[in-house]
């Protein structure tokens, strides 16, 4: 006996096996991301005053990436629809765009990541004077970039300073801080555009804590990196499957077109889910 309903729908349920499987799998994925989103809500609501980071991500790039993913969602449907009509060439074309969009998304994301890894916050023992927009302020917490030996290093933290025996470094201070309200933050960013940064000379002895914008910087960046990395893994996985079906697995179109079309449909369902996760991720992490 062969396994029934591998490509033809079962009459009483109306769908074939793999489609049941993928919907069940997506249900579990909803629970996975649901738990992470719940954790985000709980941690954000319970965050102590002045510790929740906001306004540190590049919204135009994030928006562009959102459109890249939405485009791929459209092309994945167009490709499947083309296959349903028997137009294999058109399917190849649309699905190629899907794969390119996935790669584009990941490429942009990796630039965003790298940008964060050399952006620092330093907690000082004694306050210093920096600009917040057009105002001079005294503060213990400064954002900015480290300059050491003429380079902008990545991934430094308090322990790095100790272990490398660094006595001091130059710090290009940003003219804003995430503890400002969203309105003040936007104002500070706009008025200081194009103006030179204040450069501080910081002694290691004066550093309470130093951290790049990495997961251990704060709960916000922990959530940001965990969620976007997990989403990124889903994008990679989905793109890999779509690529396999599109490229090496395309022989099946000749031998079993119905099953092939189903494969495209199932991978497309997963792809839509991955996009949907991003549609939730983008506002809560970039905008709110």
């Amino acid at each position: 006996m062969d396994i029934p309903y591998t490509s033809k729908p079962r009459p009483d349920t109306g769908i074939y096996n793999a489609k049941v499987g993928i919907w069940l799998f997506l249900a579990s994925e909803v629970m996975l991301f649901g738990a992470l989103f719940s954790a985000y809500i709980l941690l954000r609501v319970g965050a102590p005053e002045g510790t929740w980071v906001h306004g540190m991500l590049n919204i135009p790039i994030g928006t562009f990436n959102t459109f890249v993913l939405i485009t791929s969602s459209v092309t994945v449907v167009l490709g499947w629809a083309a296959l349903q009509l028997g137009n294999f060439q058109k399917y190849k074309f649309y699905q190629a765009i899907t794969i390119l969009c996935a790669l584009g998304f990941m490429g942009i994301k990796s630039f965003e990541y790298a940008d964060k890894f050399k952006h620092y916050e330093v907690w000082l023992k004694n306050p210093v004077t920096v600009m917040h927009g057009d105002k001079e302020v005294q503060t213990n917490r400064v954002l900015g970039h480290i300059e050491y030996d003429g380079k902008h290093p990545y991934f430094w933290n308090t322990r790095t300073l100790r272990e490398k025996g660094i006595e001091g470094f130059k710090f290009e201070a940003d003219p804003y801080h995430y503890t400002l309200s969203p309105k003040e933050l936007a104002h500070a960013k706009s008025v200081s555009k194009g103006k030179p940064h204040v450069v501080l000379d910081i002694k290691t002895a004066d550093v309470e804590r130093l951290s790049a914008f990495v997961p251990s910087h704060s709960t916000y960046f922990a959530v940001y990196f965990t969620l976007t990395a997990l989403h990124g893994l889903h994008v990679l996985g989905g793109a890999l499957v779509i690529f396999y079906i599109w490229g090496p697995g395309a022989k099946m179109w000749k031998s079993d077109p119905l099953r092939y079309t189903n494969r495209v449909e199932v991978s497309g369902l997963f792809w839509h889910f991955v996009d949907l996760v991003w549609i939730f991720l983008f506002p809560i992490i970039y905008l709110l």
Partner: protein
Amino acid sequence: MQATTHTAAHHGAHEAHHHEPSFLQKYVFSTDHKVIGIQYGLTSLGFLLFGFLLMLCMRWQIAHPGETIPVVGKLLGSILRNMDGSLMMPDGKMTYDVYNIFGAMHGTIMVFLAIVPLAFGAFGNYVTPLMIGAPDMAFPRLNMASYHVFLLGGIVMFASFFIPGSAAQSGWTSYSPLATTVTTHGQAYWLVGMVLLITSSLLGAVNFIATIIQLRAPGMTWMRLPFFVWAQFVTGFLLLLAFPPLEAAGIMQLMDNVFGTSFFLPTGLAVGGRIADASGGGSPLLWQHLFWFLAHPEVYVLILPGMGIVAEVIANNTRKSLWGYKSLVFSALAIGFISFIVWAHHMYLTGMGTKISAFFQTTTMIISIPSVIILTCLFISLWGGSIRFTTPMLFALAFLPMFGIGGLTGLPLGFAASDIHLHDTYYVIAHFHYVVAPGTIFALFAGIYYWFPKMTGRMMSEFWGKVHFIGSFIFMNVVFQPMFAQGMAGMIRRMADGGLNYSKISHPDAIGGLDKIYIDLHTVILWGAVGLAISQIPFIVNLFVSIKKGKKVTSDNPWEATTLDWQTPTPPPHGNFTKEPVAHRNPYDYSLPGAAKDFTPQNQP
């Protein structure tokens, strides 16, 4: 079609069409649900024994704190190493760290590597497709993958004993911040192992549910499914939807342990007298919520397949239909739904607030209703039956009062007020072990004795089966019954000296110190556990000897059962059925008036 009509010649002709697969294809990379079921079964039985041996060492330590462990002490002493490479217990005396490691791993192994894979992976895989009349699972290769991922998870867990610092030691619940601040690497292995095990369960759950929805034979309507299949169906949904939040929590704890985040570390956390080098702002309570969101449904993952097995065995051995089939089915479904909203009854003492406690106390009382309905239906099913006291039936019968004790003693824990006294005492251990050990494990033994002839074509020895049963039944109770008394007297769990330090033996004048008798009960429990270990020897020998030397079955249906799993050749070939089965009737048509025999198979028109 009568099952007995399949002759040996018939099988031979069928198999002749296939070329002989290699050993690897047949036993390691098999996509046949029956082979995968047996793989799951043997692996999980191995882990069951291993988890039990860990516990034996712990029981020795509790009864004889600081004395050299007999037999295995020296061996353990030469294996377990500290972070700096020195031996952890060179003289064979269990240290408190080793006790914590064994405790954490006993729980983890028993739940995730023994009972779930045995109940769901092994029986679910082997029996479900046969019962619904399917040739295999819906996704055979996914099935193989889920076993391999499970095995990998098991290997990671097992290997973690041998790394410097040894395995995880923060309890099977792995509460943060303890799990993050312990300096050994065992917890990271534990988390990676868990992520693998969860992935395996998810793949398995998707496969089971899709199989039951899609591959039911013609005529096998939902209300004609054997109760075992319903139990597996609900279990599948529990695994599918409850496990991902723990996976999320596991990922977050892994981030805490490896990348220094503070998901579960609160602001101002001090470790070893110093403020921890962490951003803070996390929530320890969040871990507990996410953990118990899985771990309570997990309780039903442990018990529902057991109930399914017991229902099959009881219907078969009473020679009558199950009483209240529909009640059983709807109760199982109700348990499935309600089990998602009871988790915080494990957390009454966390300070989450009385309003939330009141809610979870209410739902907890509600979920006991369907459990009682199931147990009652099974009890009433015995009424008026002509009971055959076979080995599987003895285990199934013992399941009923044992699970009853486990369930009823859970009620005082479900009430927030009485839980204040009982929380985290030996009473809790006794309660959930009554559910899982003499409960589920007895059901699983019943299942092994019951389906063994279908898997191998030979019977297991009835005599040694009964010896196994009597020994297990007596010693299970000797082990767990005293713990109720200890717990009610206030003995706290997880103490490496069994509470000696808080007793009147150590401090005669202590107010509220434990009386000597409760400490002495540890000795009773220890010898009960040893007796339990000895009682398993007949089973282990019986299991392996019967594969080659057991009495051959004379028909494909030696128990004269009605469900489709017995209407196949023995053992079932690849593809299971020689002819597509059609279900014509209810699953338990025993002793129909006017029928030729006292059982009418489901595929008989």
